[in-house]
Structure formats: structure tokens, C-alpha cells
């Protein structure tokens, strides 16, 4: 992109309140974030409730890569490759998925308060899972139901909004119908919880809704991998169009963009990401809302850098938070609680920081 245009974007973004104080410092921000993620990934490997001394860990990895004879206990290998590795991979993908779809939604809805569940994906997924638990489905069934209902809820939002407003403000209508669908599905979940047997089903549903990565097995890695790739690739490829969309419908049209089609593709990709993340990790709030803000702070408002930065920061953030969730106490701390405890004060900090700009 020529520098003049880039300057234009930054100037315009400043006008709509997406100003970034660090954007003028010229450091290759995306590669730096990539290195941070790799560091966090390696660090996460060394910690856990089952303590593995570092020399033994290195010996196993060394032995595995070069196909040496096993000179370590099987249990340790199981912990590393069957328990810890899938969980780390899933934390990375879930974090990236939530932050990436959050950043995209904030772009197409031109609203920094939007999170990836705005169109009902989380509420739908939660209901799907609750229903599956009520009907005694197995684990795969629960995850699939959750995934399908997540997508179904967003589809419902989209259809309803296009029925209601044929030619009027499509973005506002989407958000409004999204709210309706969200509360509708939340009510359905409450009904399921009400009829569920408090001796067995109710605790199971409550558990699921709290969210967390404790149930991750290698199978879940495969389950999220494909929706993740299918969702992330279009977002990364279309990220410059998000710049144009975030200026507003008319300007985007004036620049010759088929806003409807682009919005459609981005919504599908983001929904795929959110639903697959919720299906295996439950409700993990705040990541999709605050990480894009943090990314904007370090990478600037240009989606060319903002989107990769969001993906990388989201992955690193959730990985580290999950490290705390799985290692701090004997019992697991529900991931959703931790992200809220960290997320809410941070968001407040952002609001306080931005106050000067709004006054």
C-alpha cells in the first residue's frame, strides 16, 4: 500500500476514535508478536500440574525428533504429547479465533464495543450444548450440536435482519436482530437448565457453560483445526477491505467495493471461528472484545497489521491465561472467570486512557 493512502487511513481512523499512540514508532510489530507467541508456546510446555524436569523434557523432545530409543517413562510422554500439547494448541487456536473474529466484527460494524458473540454465536452454541447434554449425547455430539447451533443462530440473525430491513441500515439491523436472537437462545438455555435433573444433568450443563480447556484431547485439536483454517484464511486475505469497510458504507461503495458480499464473507468466516472456539472451549468472554483494542494500541488501526496482531495477541493471551487456569491450583479455574477478571480492569484502563480523546 502506498504511504499516502496509509496516512489517509490513519488520519481517518483518528477521526472515528480509533487513534493509536504507538503507531508512529516503526518497529516490525507483527514479527515481534510472532516471536512472543512462540516464546509463550515453549514456556507453556514446561509447566503443568504433572511436573516434568526441564532436562527430561528436552531429552524427550530431542529423542522424539531424532527417533532415539525410549529412555523415559511412558507416563511423562503421555503428559507431554497427549495432554499438554493438545491443550496448548487449542488455547492458541481458540484465542486467535476469538480475537480475530472480534477484530473483524469491530471493523464491519464500525463499533469498538462489539465482540464476536454479537450475532448470537455464543448463545446459540451454549443452547446447542445444553440441549445435547439434556438428551444424553456423547462428547462429540455435544461439540457438534454446539457448533451447529452457533452457526444456526447467526444464520437466523442474518435471515431475520434481511427480512426486516430490505434496503435500510443493514449494519444496525444486524446488531439489533443479533441481540434479539442472543436473548432468545439464552432463554432457551435457561429452559433447558430448568427442566434438567439437578442431580445429574444440571451440574453438567453449568460446567459446560462456564467454559474451559480441561477436557481437551488430541481429537479436539483436529475438530477445531479445519474450521480455524477455513475461517482465518479469508479474514487475512480480505483484511485490507476491512479498512475500507470501517470507514462506512458509502465511502466503501464509492471506492468500488461490493460491501454486501465482503460483509457476508467476513461474517461467515468469523462465525465459523467463534462457533468452533465455543464448541470446544465453552463460553470464554472478553477475549474477542479487549484483544482487538490491545492490538490497535500496539499495531495501529490499519487492518493490514491490526488483524495479524489481533490473532497473535489473542493466541498468546489465552495461552498464558490457560496456563494460570491449569497450574495455579489443584482444581481448574474456569477460563471464562479468569478472562473476565483480567479483561474487565484492562478494559477500564483503556477507557480511562482514551478519556482525553473523548473530552
Amino acid at each position, binding site marked *: 500500500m502506498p504511504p499516502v493512502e496509509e496516512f489517509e487511513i490513519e488520519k481517518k481512523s483518528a477521526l472515528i476514535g480509533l487513534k493509536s499512540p504507538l503507531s508512529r514508532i516503526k518497529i516490525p510489530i507483527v514479527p515481534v508478536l510472532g516471536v512472543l507467541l512462540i516464546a509463550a508456546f515453549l514456556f507453556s510446555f514446561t509447566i503443568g*500440574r504433572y511436573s516434568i524436569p526441564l532436562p527430561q523434557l528436552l531429552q524427550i523432545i530431542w529423542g522424539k525428533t531424532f527417533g532415539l530409543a525410549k529412555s523415559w517413562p511412558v507416563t511423562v510422554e*503421555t503428559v507431554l504429547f497427549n495432554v*499438554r500439547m493438545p491443550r496448548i494448541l487449542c488455547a492458541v487456536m481458540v484465542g486467535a479465533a476469538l480475537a480475530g473474529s472480534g477484530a473483524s466484527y469491530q471493523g464491519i460494524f464500525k463499533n469498538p464495543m462489539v465482540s464476536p458473540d454479537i450475532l448470537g454465536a455464543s448463545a446459540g452454541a451454549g443452547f446447542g450444548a445444553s440441549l445435547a447434554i439434556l438428551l444424553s449425547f456423547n462428547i462429540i455430539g455435544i461439540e457438534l450440536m454446539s457448533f451447529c447451533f452457533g452457526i444456526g443462530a447467526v444464520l437466523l440473525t442474518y435471515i431475520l435482519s434481511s427480512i426486516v430491513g430490505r434496503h435500510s441500515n443493514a449494519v444496525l439491523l444486524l446488531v439489533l436482530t443479533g441481540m434479539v436472537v442472543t436473548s432468545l437462545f439464552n432463554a432457551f438455555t435457561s429452559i433447558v437448565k*430448568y427442566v434438567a435433573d439437578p*442431580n445429574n444433568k*444440571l451440574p453438567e450443563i453449568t460446567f459446560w457453560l462456564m467454559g*474451559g480447556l*480441561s477436557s481437551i484431547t488430541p481429537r479436539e485439536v483436529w475438530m477445531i483445526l479445519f474450521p480455524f483454517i477455513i475461517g482465518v484464511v479469508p479474514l487475512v486475505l480480505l483484511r485490507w477491505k476491512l479498512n475500507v469497510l470501517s470507514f462506512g458504507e458509502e465511502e466503501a461503495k464509492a471506492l468500488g467495493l461490493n460491501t454486501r458480499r465482503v460483509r457476508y464473507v467476513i461474517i461467515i468466516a468469523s462465525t465459523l471461528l467463534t462457533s468452533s472456539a465455543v464448541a470446544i472451549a465453552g463460553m470464554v468472554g472478553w477475549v474477542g472484545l479487549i484483544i482487538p483494542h490491545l492490538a490497535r494500541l500496539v499495531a495501529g488501526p490499519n487492518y493490514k497489521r491490526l488483524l495479524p496482531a489481533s490473532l497473535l495477541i489473542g493466541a498468546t493471551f489465552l495461552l498464558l491465561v490457560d496456563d494460570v487456569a491449569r497450574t495455579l491450583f*489443584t*482444581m481448574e479455574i474456569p477460563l471464562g472467570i479468569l478472562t473476565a477478571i483480567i479483561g474487565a480492569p484492562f478494559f477500564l484502563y483503556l477507557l480511562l486512557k482514551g478519556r482525553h480523546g473523548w473530552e
Partner: protein
Amino acid sequence: MKKTKTFKTLTALLLCAALTAIPLTGCSGSKAAVPANAAGANPRTITDILGYKVTLPAKINKIYCTSPVGAVMLYTVDPDKLVSWNLTLSDAQKPFIKKQYQNLPMMGNSGTQFNTEQIIKQNPDIILDFAQQGQVDANVKQLATQTGLPVVEMDTSLEATAKDYRLLGTILGEKKRTEELASYIDKKQNSIKALMDKVPADKQASVYYAESADGLKTDGSDSMHTQLLKFLGIKNVVTISTSQNMKGTAVSMEQVLNWNPSVIIASRQMGGDQFLKSVYQNASWKSISAVKNKKVYSPPVTPFDWFDRPPCITRVLGAQWLAQTLYPETVKIDMASETKTFFSTFFSVNLTDDEVKKILSSES
């Protein structure tokens, strides 16, 4: 003109008076209902298990139990006084319950919400509540305030079971029946405890209680869900306190591998069947001593779970079952005959040998 205005004022005043009168009469009506409800000449005062003094009507015809724990106990004494099961009986449970009591209405319970009007409609004389670790749920207190009914508190712990029965006998005036059941419980509990004392120290099992299909939800040693382990003095590897969270806690696979329990008890109601199917194939679980030695058990659930959920009287039988499953060399009990005796004593059901086999096998 003036006349209309006076008329309007008058109407308004009358309306106001009428409106104030409604709550007044309503109030006096409900006040009158209380003595009528506490019928009979001689209301009695008893002390319940938690030490509360409760005034009861002389004759009790119906009891509303806030949870299945009380409902099951009351059924074994006098099913005619049972208002609701507080759970939906499954097709597997129904054959062991007399037909006329199979379809009692569901009225919510302390785990969710009460349907207060439905409860009042059944016109129970008292509310029977089982407190968990001495704590009375806020919604039970609220139900008592709303209905004006006396609440009798009992204790879910296994040690209190015989005591609970005796108190119920006093309340219902059926001491003969409850004494029969209470002395049975005393006898069985004392003998199983004596047997447990003989288990050699080096043979002691360490148990993990799996409460989900993936096996990673559990309850700590202080929870009401693991009281059976505590009662038998069996070590629960989960020593953390989880009682404040009645719904248990999630733990990581690494943590379970770290605990390396020698026995796993899988709750059949909480995904245990699925867990049992996958646990021997799962690479992570295969590293655990209990799985290596094929010591993953799921307690019988007929007619109510023998281990937990609800934590009711079938746990008396569950204690015998668990002790002889874990320590077959020390605890030699004929479970088939014990099961038959228990079913005929408590549920007036005579089991056939096939039925006993089915109940004791993990397929029931």
C-alpha cells in the same frame, strides 16, 4: 356540573376504601388459615436434627420433601404421605416402586426452584428438608415463609441416617417401622465399619471419583457427594475443599495423572457409562494405576444410586458394595443376599436371582 364533581370524588373515595380493604381481608383470611392448618387440639414441639425446635400438628397426613433424599426415606416408611418425588422416575426405576406412587407430580426442588402454588395445592402439613453440612438453603427458608408450614431439618450424612429415621418415626407416629429400619442400618453400618478396620494399611486404596463422560469433573473429600468414601475411611485423592461449590470442580488430566489413584469410581448418572467405554482405550488414562489394574468401577443405581445423587438411604447398601468391591480379601459379604434383604426390608420388593444379578452387574 358541581354534582358530577362530587359524584366523582365520592366514587374515588369509595374505590380507595375498597382497595385498602382487599389486602386487609386477605390478610385476616390467611391468619385464620394457620390455626386451621395446624389442626387438632394438641400441636407438639419436637427438636429436629439441626437442633431447631419445631411445632407440628398432632396428625400429619402429607409431607412435602424438598429433595429426593427425603422423598425416598419417606417412601420406605409411609408412601401414602409422600406428595412428590422431586425427581422424574426413569423406566429402570419404576418396577421397584409401587404403581400408585410412580407418577407423583414434580414440583421443583431445592436444586432448582419450587413451584410454591402447586405445593400449597397439595396441602402438605410439614416440609421435610435435608440440610447439606448443616446449611439450610435460602430457597427452603423462603418456601417456609411463603407457605407458613413448619420445616423439619434432617442431615444427609450417612452417620445420621438411623437418627433421621427415628425422628421421622416420632413425627409420623410410626416408631415401630422406623425402628426396624434404623436398627437394620445401625447393624449394617457397625459391621461394615468393623470390617473396614481390618483392612491392612498397605492395601488401602486411593480413590478418584469421576463425575463426567471425560472423567475430569470430581468432588473433594468434604463434599456431600463423596460422603460414602469418608464414611468408610477410604482415601479420596481429591483433598481440596469443593463443598462450597455444590456442583463439584473440574481438574486437569495432568492433575489426575499426578494423583495416580489406585481405584476410580465412575458415577453412572454423570456420564460414567461413556467414561467406562473410553477409559481403557484412552492413552492418557491408560497411564493411571487404576486403569492399568482394571480397577474402574461404577456403583449400581437401582432403584436409586448407591453412591450419590441423590445422597439417600441406598448408600447403606452402597457402603457394603464398595467395601467388598475394593477389598474382596478382607470384606467378605454375600452381596446378592444383602441386596435381597435390603430391597425387601426397605422397598417391600422381593428380587429374583436374575434381577439381583442385573442390579449388581454394571449393565443395569
